[in-house]
């Protein structure tokens, strides 16, 4: 073999909070790639680097406490080990909590792969008075043991040396197996015999491991065995084995297995470790006393969340202005170099405008994910879930769901991305299905425009009521979804509260960068595509015969200016007026405009006309676009939410009443999220079915609630 030909795959396994990610970052540096494991949204981190003559591919397996088939992370970790057969598995064990961490180790050992134990945070263990005899532990467990301190970058070289040594020379011992006792062994060998009759169907799994899992009644292994030619016999045998063991031990075999594993661990630990000090009240306990205090916990949480929000949106302001400025200048440049016409409009309005509208959020997204990384890496996130669980439980979700929902008030895009912190798939989906009702920041300009026009005196109160409706609808919908589409209880809330830790700057920034890059990539692909489609809908077909001959009117104005009949300002005002009237006629004539008219019968019961219909459709591109579209429809030129002319046009339009205005803002609040959010939604859920559900039910709900408001208001005589 020549150097670099020696490609090896190393997998990192371990408990959550064992410092796995820190070690992964130490070893791979920036050479990492974040993707997903096939078909699921569980993050798969992969990094490549050279060490000595080897090209090492390092895979960060999901952090798990066990390798049972009860969570998607566990199934992924164990299938990866079994099917991808990494050359070495590094099992990261938090030395300061060694017994609990070794529970996973006993299960990895059973898979029969080469293992190295990294006793991480060994300094913390030492400080707390736990002395570990590494050599002895290595002998007892039958695997090489390397002490490491991940956050100080210690022991990394030793770890890699151990990997190379294990590959080149092997290890003198076999990974020690837990002794389940004679009775178990008897049942296992009986089952193994049956399974071995058709070795084609074992799919690379070790037969005695399958037998043990059958006794544990592991759902994934049951599924695998159902394809076996002896499936019936095997299942019958397994049921008998379980029955027999249950009567022998007076307990479920799976519980006995757990007992035996912990028994093995405490045996090994009592021999290889000594505790020289009692556990002391530490700094984490003091912080926890405040942060999860039954009374103080909630206000502390509120303050921290307010800070996150404040930082995200106020620090983001300047960079956003800079990006807006750059986008405008880019559009300006494009207008100069691309001749007037279709291509120009496509590039400037469609591509730069559409993608620009999404990239503008990048500073917010980066800051928000930096804040989330900070909360996660310090250990506070678990406390937030703890504090919020009491309230969220009443609604039918648990503590962790609160975080993405809160982020939703800023922007639905990072909220969907943030819902990853909820492990349970059903809880995650329910959360994502109600996040839309947490009124996002881009909807605010619409409220400001409409409420400012119709309630100039108390717009703030009206806007607040809209936000409140969103929250109420979200709560009601969680309950409705729980009893209809997602039946059953919320998943059991059992969570570790890891010790508070100082996060490393490197890991914070890596974390932030990963998420932000994902967002940017999205803007470059799917959002680019949708922007072009939206532009097409709002541009074609082109109108040729306008109600007035605007071109010659513009020419006339310019001529009048030439001979000084009007001032420069007057000229510009007139031309802008003509242009926007042209744009307005064009929009009405376009596919989007026709669509707006086509859906008018649907919108009539809500009191909306086709112009509001177009505005709603354009909101699909981005919610704040509703405002600029209304500007175009009403032909008032460039419009923003404070635009006086647009406001007075709306307020003075005899077709509109306060009731219609309110119905409209509620509709905008509840109807489906914008395309950027939906693009992220499909990426996170990987389910077109859920996407269609999200789009249709939110919009249907918006229609229904708007109908109730409008018709109810009419009955009460509020449409005056």
């Amino acid at each position, binding site marked *: 073999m020549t150097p670099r030909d020696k490609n090896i795959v190393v997998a990192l396994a371990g408990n959550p909070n064992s410092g796995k990610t820190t070690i992964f970052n130490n070893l791979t540096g920036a050479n990492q790639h974040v993707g997903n494991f096939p078909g699921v949204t569980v993050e798969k981190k992969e990094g490549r680097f050279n060490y000595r003559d080897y090209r090492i591919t390092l895979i960060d397996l999901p952090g798990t406490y066990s390798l049972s088939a009860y969570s998607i992370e566990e199934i992924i970790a164990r299938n990866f080990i079994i099917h991808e057969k990494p050359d070495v598995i590094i099992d990261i064990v938090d030395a300061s909590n060694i017994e609990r961490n070794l529970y996973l180790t006993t299960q990895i050992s059973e898979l029969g792969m080469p293992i190295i134990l990294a006793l991480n945070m060994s300094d913390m263990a030492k400080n707390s008075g736990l002395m570990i005899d590494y050599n002895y532990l290595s002998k007892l467990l039958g695997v090489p043991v390397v002490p490491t301190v991940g956050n100080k970058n210690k022991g990394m070289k030793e770890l890699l040396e151990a990997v190379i040594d294990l590959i080149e020379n092997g290890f003198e011992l076999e990974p020690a197996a837990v002794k389940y006792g004679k009775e178990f062994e008897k049942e296992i060998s009986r089952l193994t015999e049956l399974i071995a009759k058709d070795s084609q169907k074992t799919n690379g799994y070790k037969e005695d491991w399958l037998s043990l899992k059958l006794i544990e009644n592991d759902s994934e292994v049951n599924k695998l065995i159902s394809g076996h030619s002896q499936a019936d016999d095997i299942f019958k045998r397994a049921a008998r084995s379980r029955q027999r063991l249950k009567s022998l031990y007076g307990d479920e075999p799976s519980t006995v297995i757990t007992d035996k594993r912990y028994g093995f661990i405490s045996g090994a630990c009592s021999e290889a470790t000594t505790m020289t000090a009692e556990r002391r009240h530490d700094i984490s306990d003091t912080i926890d006393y405040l942060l999860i205090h*039954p009374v103080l916990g909630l206000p502390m949480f509120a303050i921290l969340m307010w800070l996150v929000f404040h930082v995200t949106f106020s620090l983001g302001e300047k960079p956003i202005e800079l990006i807006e400025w750059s986008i405008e200048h880019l559009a300006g440049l494009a207008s100069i170099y691309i001749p007037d016409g279709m291509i120009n409009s496509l590039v400037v309005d469609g591509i730069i405008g559409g993608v620009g509208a999404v990239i503008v959020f990048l500073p917010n997204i980066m800051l928000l994910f930096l804040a989330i990384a900070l909360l996660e890496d310090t250990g506070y996130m678990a406390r937030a879930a703890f504090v919020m669980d009491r309230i969220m439980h009443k609604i039918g979700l648990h503590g962790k769901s609160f975080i993405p929902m809160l982020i939703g008030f800023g922007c639905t895009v990072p909220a969907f991305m943030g819902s990853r912190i909820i492990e349970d798939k059903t809880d995650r989906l329910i959360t994502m299905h109600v996040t839309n009702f947490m009124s996002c920041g881009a909807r605010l300009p619409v409220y400001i425009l409409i409420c400012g026009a119709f309630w100039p005196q108390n717009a703030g109160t009206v806007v607040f009521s809209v936000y409140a409706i969103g929250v109420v609808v979200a709560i009601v919908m969680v309950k409705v979804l729980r009893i209809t589409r997602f039946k059953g209880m919320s998943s059991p809330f059992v969570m570790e509260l890891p010790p508070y830790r100082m996060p490393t700057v490197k890991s914070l920034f890596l974390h932030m960068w990963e998420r932000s890059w994902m967002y940017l990539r999205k803007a470059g692909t799917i959002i680019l595509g949708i922007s072009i489609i939206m532009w097409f809908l709002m541009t074609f077909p082109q109108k040729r015969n306008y109600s007035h001959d605007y071109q010659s009117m513009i020419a006339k104005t310019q001529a009048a200016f030439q001979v000084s009949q009007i001032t420069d300002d007057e000229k510009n005002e007139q031309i802008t007026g003509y242009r926007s009237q042209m744009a307005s006629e064009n929009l009405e004539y376009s596919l989007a405009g026709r669509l707006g008219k086509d859906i008018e019968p649907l919108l009539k019961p809500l009191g909306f006309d086709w112009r509001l219909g177009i505005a709603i459709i354009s909101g699909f591109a981005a919610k704040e676009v509703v405002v600029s579209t209304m500007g175009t429809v009403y032909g008032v030129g460039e419009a923003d939410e404070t635009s006086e002319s647009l406001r007075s046009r709306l307020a003075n339009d005899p077709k509109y009443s306060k009731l219609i205005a309110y119905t409209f803002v509620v509709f905008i609040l509840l109807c489906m999220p914008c395309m950027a959010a939906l693009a992220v939604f499909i990426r996170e859920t990987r389910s077109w079915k859920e996407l269609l559900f999200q789009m249709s039910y939110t919009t249907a709900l918006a229609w229904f609630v708007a109908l109730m408001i409008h018709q109810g208001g009419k009955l009460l005589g509020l449409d005056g």
Partner: protein
Amino acid sequence: MRFWNSTAKSGGGSKTTRASNSLYLSNAREGETYTMLGLEGGHRFKEKVYSMGLNPGVKFKILQNSGRGPVELQVRQTKLAIGRGMTARIKIRKNDAPG
């Protein structure tokens, strides 16, 4: 149950203590230490709780149980939060006062 109760006063055998002192985590008191006995529920919940270090036989200390919201406890070298609904299914036994 009855039989064990009747002999509980001797306080010697493990079985007697187990029966007389067994209670649910939801009723555990802050600051006291307990021994995990087991839990009522499906395999999924069992494996989750056991694999997080709260397995039958292990001793733990209650850090917070305010009667509402999750219970916080210290087990092995870590802290766990357990949702209120779950605590009514976890059986525990009070440890004798140290010394």
